[in-house]
């Protein structure tokens, strides 16, 4: 993992949140290890930042949910290590930012919270309790130029193409081979917070490629105990190994027996996916 960091703020001028993205980036850039990337110059002349981006990981700071900085990074196919949204942080603090650009206690509190979020990532991660299987065997089918693989056993799927595999009371959640092929090169995984409690079919973060954002719909209910930290440096593992190294979230299950009623086992998902692929003519 590299020590240097590139920070890409949206730098919006017409909303307070955009201005705060800039102020956070400037605070970060006080460190010599941090290179501040101007979004507009990056768009105009990517080569200006090529060396810095090759040497360091990229943190993106979006001001609002238009997510201009994220979109720019995706358009340029830049791998993102971490992403923060100023408006979401402000909302979590119950602070309204609005249009007017201002420097007061509220905006300073938001800046500090965003900086804290960036500094504390993965700090709460505990050692994994999940027991990995020695090997996973697959069934495959082809459609046109695509070959899709589905594990032969021990995985369960919802109809949103998200899987869960269980070890005692622990489980891992990820996305199917079908999802990763649809998204193409995955650039960023936005995991949930450790400790989050969620119900079956709740959102459990998202993954992004230059083509689309895919919301992860949880196949089970439970509590997040770990996220796959390796994906922050190598999100492409979801493409390369969607059922094994590319797992997304580790959870403590609430009631898997009940959740299972609404999931497909491997043979059923294999048939479901074949029908789906034929219908939408991938």
């Amino acid at each position, binding site marked *: 993992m590299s020590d240097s960091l590139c920070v890409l*703020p*949206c*730098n*919006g*001028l*017409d*909303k307070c949140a*955009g201005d705060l993205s*800039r*102020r956070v*980036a*400037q605070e970060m850039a006080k460190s010599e290890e941090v290179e*501040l*990337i*101007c*979004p*507009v*110059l990056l*768009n*105009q*002349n990517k080569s200006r930042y090529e060396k810095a981006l090759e040497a360091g990981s990229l943190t993106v700071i979006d001001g609002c949910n*238009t997510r*201009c*900085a994220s*979109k*720019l990074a995706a358009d340029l196919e830049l791998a993102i290590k971490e992403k923060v949204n100023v408006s979401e942080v402000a909302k979590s603090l119950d602070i309204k930012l609005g*249009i007017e*650009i201002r*420097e007061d206690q509220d905006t300073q509190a938001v800046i500090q919270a965003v900086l804290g979020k960036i500094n504390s990532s993965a700090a709460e991660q505990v050692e994994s309790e999940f027991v990995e299987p020695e090997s996973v065997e697959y069934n495959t089918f082809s459609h046109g130029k695509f070959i899709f693989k589905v594990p032969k056993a021990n995985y369960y799927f919802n109809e949103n193409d998200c899987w869960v595999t269980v070890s005692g009371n622990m489980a891992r959640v990820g996305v199917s081979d079908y999802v990763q092929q649809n998204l193409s090169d995955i650039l960023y995984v936005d995991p949930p917070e450790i400790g989050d409690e969620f119900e079956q079919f709740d959102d459990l973060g998202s993954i992004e490629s230059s083509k689309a954002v895919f919301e992860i719909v949880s196949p089970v209910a439970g509590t997040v105990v770990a996220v796959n930290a390796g994906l922050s440096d190598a999100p492409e593992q979801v493409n390369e190994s969607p059922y094994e190294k590319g797992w997304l979230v580790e959870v403590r299950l609430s009631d898997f027996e009940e959740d299972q009623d609404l999931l497909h086992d491997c043979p059923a998902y294999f048939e479901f996916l074949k029908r789906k692929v034929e219908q939408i003519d991938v």
Partner: protein
Amino acid sequence: MLGNRIGVISCSGEECLGGTISRLAVRKMMEELKPGMVSTLCLPLFIAGDGGEREFAEKYPTIAVDGCSKCCAKRAIEKYSSAVAGSIDVAEIIGEAKALEKPLSTRYITDLHMEYVNQTAAKTCEIFDEILAKQ
């Protein structure tokens, strides 16, 4: 925001002091000199292609305020919309060497910097008034 019929776009301004000045000048124009008369377009949003910014710059005269001779704002308007109605290069107002100094947080702005902001904002207002007079 887009109800007014003249637009102004500042460069994003992270490469140099000229960028800091251009952003502050556009804000001054929007908040103090021409309040309610100018549509400030967000350049990152303009580049992302959302929010109606490109469509505005195609339909209505838009002024680019750039921090240095890279002219990122002007080039973006010309690339994604149409010719600019007017353009400012802060480096031509405060000098190339000064404009290429490191960008500043607004917290560290001095009186001299504010003078640069005032000059840039005044020049942008001149162009604004010329465009308005022709409408």
